[in-house]
């Protein structure tokens, strides 16, 4: 009782005019953020310089190891030789990169359409989810290397490779999106109910945006897996005498003991993987930075 006595009487007046104790608070936090960013600039620079330096040192050590020990190129080529091969064989390797990348991107796109579509279907009814989920799980747990030879028999080799890449990218997108659609704030769901929102409106205005962080997480995993799926399927198809992607070039170079070219193709595969990762991470960051906690500066 005493806590609300005369001592705590607040001055009268139009109360909503200015939320004074709160406004400066907000502005302070904004300016504090920019200040922190400015102060962090040199250490951010170091943050880039350090990994680059360590990477360069590792390459230099590799080069030195090969040169000082006179290791023949068919056992371990020096980085400089790999670089030279990359330039010499650029026409072949670049075309192969395009083939593999096209397969990967196409497979990822199909996995997004299929995964999100099926997740939305699952969200409509528990029974649909119960009936179809086992198929998705079986496809997921069966190693793609084991399925690839069958697919190559049934389908044309290009389609088979695409299907393999699609199958591995599909599941993480499906399961993450399904989880995201199911984890919308229950109070917001009730709010939608209160305002007589249709099923479609609930999906568009609540469930899909709520699932976005989960979907983007699944997309990042799926992106990496699509590349792996494409490579695995190319190797399987390549041994059947077809295909012209990077993995096929690796197999072919292996038959000819052209080790430097194998390494050059490997470098390109890694590069593709890194590019996919960076693009998807950037997409995720741009989409979530304004509202999701995952896009915040790390505290701990």
């Amino acid at each position: 009782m005493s806590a609300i006595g005369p001592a705590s009487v607040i001055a009268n007046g139009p109360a909503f005019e200015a939320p004074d104790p709160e406004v400066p608070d907000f502005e302070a936090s904004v300016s504090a953020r920019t200040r922190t960013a400015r102060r962090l600039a040199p250490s951010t620079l170091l943050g880039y310089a350090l990994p680059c330096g360590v990477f360069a040192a590792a390459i230099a050590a590799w080069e030195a190891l090969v040169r000082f020990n006179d290791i023949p190129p068919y056992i371990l080529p020096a980085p400089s030789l790999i670089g030279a091969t990359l330039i010499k064989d650029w026409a072949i390797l670049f075309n192969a990169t395009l083939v593999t990348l096209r397969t990967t991107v196409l497979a990822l796109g199909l996995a997004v359409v299929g995964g999100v579509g099926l997740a939305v279907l699952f969200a409509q009814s528990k029974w649909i989810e119960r009936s179809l989920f086992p198929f998705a799980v079986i496809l997921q747990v069966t190693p793609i290397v084991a399925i690839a030879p069958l697919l190559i028999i049934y389908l044309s080799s290009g389609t088979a490779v695409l299907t393999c890449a699609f199958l591995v990218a599909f599941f993480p997108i499906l399961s993450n999106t399904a989880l995201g659609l199911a984890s919308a704030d229950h109070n917001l769901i009730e709010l939608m109910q209160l305002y007589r929102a249709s099923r479609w409106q609930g999906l568009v205005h609540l469930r899909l945006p709520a699932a976005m962080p989960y979907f983007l997480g699944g997309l990042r995993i799926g992106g990496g897996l699509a590349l792996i799926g494409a490579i695995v399927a190319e190797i399987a198809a390549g041994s059947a005498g077809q295909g012209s992607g990077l993995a096929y070039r690796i197999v072919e170079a292996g038959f000819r003991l052209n080790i430097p070219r194998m390494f050059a193709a490997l470098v390109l595969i890694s590069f593709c993987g890194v590019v996919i990762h960076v693009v998807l991470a950037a997409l995720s960051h741009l989409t979530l930075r304004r509202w999701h906690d995952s896009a915040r500066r790390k505290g701990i």
Partner: protein
Amino acid sequence: MTLGRTSPLSGMMSSPLRGPPPRPAVKAGSVALRNVSKTFSNGTVALSNLDLEVREGEFVSLIGPSGCGKSTALRIMAGLTAPSSGTLEGGGGADVGFVFQEPTLMPWATVFDNVWLPLRLRRMSRTAAASAVLEALALVGLSKFTGSYPRELSGGMKMRVSIARALVIEPRLLLMDEPFAALDEITRFKLNNDLIRLKAELGTTVVFVTHSVYESVFLSSRIVVMASRPGRAIDDIAVPAPADRDEAFRSSPAYVETCRAASLALHGAMAEDDYL
């Protein structure tokens, strides 16, 4: 600020919000529970034979110990839960605003978009809804924050957005489920004052669930005290003060006396609880 207007709703009433208004059985802003009981599927009896009538323009607080069914009563009025027996008159329509204990904002949407949501669900475009949204935000003093995201706001500001979202549909009945329980006392006092002013300005009927005797006395025209196991109403206390009261009311004899009466009733409710 729009305090100077003769009728705060007149500007919004002409907006193409609704078609012809439906003819309800009871007056638009009133709501009544008649002999309502609610038993949950696990066997818990949340409400037993509750009779509660809220007349148009009233500000009724429901107070009582945890588990006395006050939130359940509110959810039944909102149409979020169906009663196991008994009837609901009024309430439950598209004309009802609801404020949860948490702000319950969409984190991915700006303040403007959050308040726009109820109108958007009625298929109103952003431009068509803009004046109503901005007016609702002006009512809660957040005109400068239309482009902010919820995480950039303090707890009190988030709750104001939540209130603006409830007000944007011009509800005749506003249901609030412990809306200020998670806020610090200073912010809570401020929002209490704001609510008094909004109530006086808009004339909306309000049903307000709270744990706090002081809050209920300061805000309400009537306090319904509830007891638990099973949930039921045990007392009905009128607050002898005009609707447009101000901070001075907090130190008036009428306030102190009503707080005493409500506290006694609440203690009576809690004494019946076997866990105390």
